[in-house]
């Protein structure tokens, strides 16, 4: 029988857990690829002015619809002679912004509601459950399209619509977690010790749902990224001439036979971007969720 090495015990348990999680994460190559790729997309979005070879709107009428590599345009140009690569790089800003901020918005709105429903139960729980059902009854895109119609088409409003669209699902997740956590011994102990509800929720309930929320956030982001592309494609999101992958795809539809690559490259960008967050999310779920057996 082995007794724990005192050297190991000396390290605080939280640091040890973190080290264990990191080790488990690094053992999953796909998750690491996802992390690197997602980080790259975020960096590119932030550093667009530096990494993009051209501005997004510079037109080069000597080189319209140029194929890749021609005239110093790595991915070619569009019908106005604008550099494809630069437009994709600038376009990543809209995608990342919509993906990240709509998810943050959804979490900020949904988590407190879900916690209240799950922790207090009582009459408030079924009320929130029905309201969630009502929101879920509207197909995501119909809801987003409706909101875009009410608020007017713009990136901010698309982000708002996407965030609200993700709220009902997140409420359910947060409610489920709070429901499970209220039965935990440390929460009961805090209740027995007379801790106030606010401090219990803030100190014991919320922090313990963190891993679930992180996983949930990582899978909401790619959905929102695709959602932004769809809305912009339909003309309900980013308005041209501001570059966005959805707008680029929409523009490319007129040139499917002459220059199909105009539709291919932005699509690949959307795909890789959402794939990277999905890979990351799957990896995090495996690492953080003790219930998954693998």
């Amino acid at each position, binding site marked *: 029988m082995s007794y724990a090495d005192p050297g190991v015990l000396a390290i605080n348990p939280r640091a040890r857990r973190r080290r264990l999680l990191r080790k488990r994460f690094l053992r999953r190559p796909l998750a690491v690829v996802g992390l690197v790729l997602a980080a790259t997309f975020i960096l590119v979005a932030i550093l667009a002015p530096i990494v993009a070879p051209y501005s997004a709107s510079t037109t080069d009428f000597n080189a319209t619809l140029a194929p890749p590599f021609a005239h110093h345009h790595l991915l070619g140009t569009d019908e106005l002679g604008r550099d494809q690569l630069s437009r994709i790089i600038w376009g990543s800003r809209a995608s990342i912004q919509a993906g990240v901020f709509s998810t943050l918005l959804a979490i900020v709105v949904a988590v407190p509601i879900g916690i209240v429903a799950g922790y207090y139960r009582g009459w408030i729980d079924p009320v929130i459950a029905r309201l969630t059902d009502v929101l879920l009854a509207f197909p995501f*895109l119909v809801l987003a399209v409706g909101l875009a119609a009410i608020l007017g088409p713009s990136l901010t409003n698309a982000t708002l619509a996407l965030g609200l669209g993700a709220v009902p699902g997140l409420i359910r997740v947060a409610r489920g977690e709070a429901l499970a956590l209220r039965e935990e011994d440390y929460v009961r102990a805090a209740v027995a010790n007379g801790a106030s509800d606010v401090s219990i929720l803030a100190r014991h309930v919320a922090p313990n749902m963190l891993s679930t929320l992180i996983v949930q956030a990582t899978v909401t982001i790619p959905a929102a990224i695709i959602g932004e592309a769809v809305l912009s494609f339909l003309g309900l999101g980013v308005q041209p001439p501001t570059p966005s992958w959805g707008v680029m795809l929409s523009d490319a539809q007129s040139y499917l036979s002459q220059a199909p690559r105009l539709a291919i490259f932005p699509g690949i960008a959307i795909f890789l971007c959402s794939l990277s967050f999905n890979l990351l999310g799957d990896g995090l779920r495996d690492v953080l969720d003790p219930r998954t057996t693998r």
Partner: protein
Amino acid sequence: MGGFLLRKVGAALIVLVLASMLVFVGVRAIPGDPALALGGENRDPAVLSAVRHKYGLDRPLPVQYARWVSLAVRGDLGTDQRELSVARTIVQRLPITLELAGLAILVGSVIGIFAGVLAAVRRGKPTDYAATTVALVGLSVPHFWLGIVMIIYFAVKLQWLPAGGYVPFSHDPIQNLEHMLMPAIVLGTGLSAVLMRQMRSSMLTALGADYVRTARAKGLSEWSVIGKHALRNSLITVTTVIGLQLGALISGAVITEQIFVIPGFGRLTIDAVNQRDYTLLQGVVLVAAAGYVVVNLFVDLVYSLLNPRIRVSGAAR
């Protein structure tokens, strides 16, 4: 059983009523005076107020809502900008989308369930990794882009299939299917990825269950252990997922119909928004929400029929 049914139907009704209120208020929140849109070019105040009066727009909101709902229950959703019956337009467009959705569910569940079972049975083997990876790709690929790519390849380059449009089934079944094939695959992709992942995980749970061990200990063939004992229980969970995916399916239909120029329900939604046709929009959104609620109620009932535990003990659980 009776109590269980009643509770489910009651909850669905409450959701429907709240949803209709939300639709009504939402459409009223759209900026712009609907009377202006309805009155067309005519900006004469007298005409506008006549229009307002005709459509009941001068009445208090609750009264307008009550009128709208009482008519809607009787199947009258009003008339759109072109004085066409909204209900009739929806009834014309809906079957097209239902065909598309039906084919997509067929494609999605056949591929998803088969791949999910296969991955679970071959867990940890190359087949599993391949299926899991393909599912992740299926989840990440924006399906409207997939539609564009398919058009580029199969319609523009190879010219095997039409790039878009719609031919009624009654008119020419072969052409109808030719037009529906690509859209159904595009719409089914996401569903099959979701179902595959769900199927894999519930199959894994089932395969690890004690009753599957019992089935093996009885000396049953691997086929009946997997195909009968494990599959039955996993399929029960997967039925609910198909219901929950309906929202995603309608969303997908909106964009798929846009790309393939199919004059279905989804395209109607976008048209209603673009034309600022409030009566039409409010009817379309109401029908979509009602459809979701009704289908999920139906799925709940099917679930309770498939799962003997709920069927008998019902409300007790």
